């Protein structure tokens, strides 16, 4: 089954062409990575898939639903984690999780289950009773990732999920993503960490100046460009 299909996607901000005719598709259960230099249009693409921005041209479907015309259907299926996002600072961690779970849970039991899952995922323990304003960057990221996954979304859209995390925390997040993918969640993520992409993603797309310049499995791409790692592929393709 196709989870995401992006066709001829364009996005203009005034005179700036942030996305310029990007096309790709992601199968259900896949971990799909979008990599590219700064300003290539990764975040813009993810925001369009998340129904936040509207395409200037082209179309995006999520599990068969158009992100513009059926935005409310799409929103029931996805979980989006913005690039360096924060959370409500004056809420306690646990209050934040409850607030977010409420939107998806059909009843109290379901909500408690989601929050319980998030508590385990975040591994923040007692700190969840503290205000979010007291959290470190790593703790913030952990609670946000936990929040994004606690609802077991059909599609999780994560913009640089391990950005700013130390090696151990980043690895934890990657393990979580792998585990959820096994349980059926589809992932669309962006990253600047080529090792991570290599380890994590089933397939990747290289994006440059708003265009998809290469897609494929990491192993295939390494072979195609006779490169030792994805970083070399990246340098080869982009320059």
């Amino acid at each position, binding site marked *: 089954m196709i989870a995401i299909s992006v066709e001829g996607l364009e996005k203009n*901000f*005034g005179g700036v062409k942030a996305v310029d005719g990007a096309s790709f598709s992601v199968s259900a259960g896949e971990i799909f990575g979008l990599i590219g230099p700064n300003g290539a249009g990764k975040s813009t693409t993810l*925001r369009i898939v*998340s*129904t*936040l*921005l*509207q395409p200037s041209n082209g179309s995006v479907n999520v599990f068969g639903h158009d992100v513009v015309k059926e935005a*409310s259907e799409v*929103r*029931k299926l*996805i*979980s*989006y*984690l*913005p*690039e*360096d*996002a*924060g*959370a*409500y*600072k*004056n*809420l306690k961690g646990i*209050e934040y999780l409850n*607030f*977010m779970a*409420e*939107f*998806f849970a059909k009843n109290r039991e379901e909500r408690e289950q989601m929050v319980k899952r998030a508590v385990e995922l975040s591994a923040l323990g007692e700190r969840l009773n503290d205000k979010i304003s007291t959290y470190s960057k790593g703790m913030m990221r952990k609670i946000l990732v936990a929040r994004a996954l606690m609802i077991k979304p059909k599609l999780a859209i994560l913009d640089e999920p391990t950005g700013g995390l130390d090696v151990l925390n980043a690895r934890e997040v990657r393990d979580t993503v792998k585990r959820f993918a096994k349980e059926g969640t589809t992932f669309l993520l962006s990253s600047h960490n080529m090792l991570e992409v290599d380890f994590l993603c089933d397939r990747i797309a290289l994006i440059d100046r708003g265009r998809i310049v290469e897609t494929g499995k990491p192993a295939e791409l390494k072979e195609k460009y006779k490169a030792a790692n994805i970083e070399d592929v990246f340098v080869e393709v982009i320059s």
Partner: protein
Amino acid sequence: MSHLTNILWKEVKELLTGQMIASMLIMVVFFVIFGSVMGNVQEEAISGKTSIALLDLDGSEESQRLTEMVGSQGNIALTVVSAHGVEEALKLAEGYDSNALLVLPEGFGEKIENMDNADVEVYAIVRGLGIMDTMSSTQAQVAISIINNILAQEYVKKAYPDKEPQSVLNPIVPKNFIFIKGAINEGSPEAIASLLMGQSILVPVILMIAIMFAGQMVITSMGMEKENKTLETLLTMPVSRGTIILGKIGGATVVAFIMSIVYLAGFGYYMYSLTPSNSISMPALSMGVIDYALLGISLFLAILVALSLSMLLGVYSQDTKSAQTMILPVTILVMIPFFLLMFSDYTTMPSALLAVMFAIPFSHPMIASRALLFGDYNIVIAGIIYMTLFSAILWLITVRVFRSDRVITAKLSLRRRR
């Protein structure tokens, strides 16, 4: 819990921080302390004794008799100074903390005996330029009118020994009535003026406090959402734009309501301690249940307009800091009718100004507070209809903006324009 209450509850928790509660309490304590201090000072100035010094350069029997009579007045603390000249007397008077020095010149007694005009020099001793300082020095005039009154009564008594001096001095005693809204009321026009003043200050003050707090809350909450990118997350939740907007507006209203009540209680106490307790009631000018209901609706709609406007402005705020200045346009729109109405009435305003004022939605509750006293319902209902339309249109615009990219990108495009 519905999505709306969920968002509303979150907003209240997010906005009503310990810091805010603390600043609210400090403000109230300030009002209470300031109110009781000011009340005391004023009470002293009004009911306390006026301290007056007197220099008798005449030394006649007549002047001594008058000095004694002035000294026996209950509200005057008289100090008779003996000095050779005015300057010396003033120095002494200053030492006694007197507010004024009266000088009875030579020949004063003789003139009085002949029923001629006699001069009395009044030196007001001003120590500071505060309102209370000048107020006490004008009370020196009171001493003069007391002397005048005593003398006049004596003259009258000489001429008409068998008459009551007061009824000769003031042959006519007016009884004041006011004819308004078809009914006759006892009272003077000044009484209406002060009643109207109370009404026309109170409503705008309530309105202003409510609008500024609520508007500030909405914009701040938008600024916070933008700062932490929580708005982006919220907008991908399976919840309608309308619910998000309503939840944010509702949450801000709840917090603003709590704040307004607390502040108004403090402010009310402050005003109460300042106002002397001789309030007037005027049956024909009091408002009925329907009048209060109309005024309430009018106020509510104005606040709704302010909130929707703030929400729209909040879209353009980048963070909590820029949110603070974003409220300015709303504040200005409240101030314009407030000042226009303070100095004139909508019935006498030039039509260009009137058009401006009617166009500003916040004018209408202020106008209503006056119009209702005079039973002018048309203008009140027209204002309510206008504000309803205005907020409906604002609502549509806000929802549109929230459905578009702008709610996310507004910050960037604003920066580029600069």
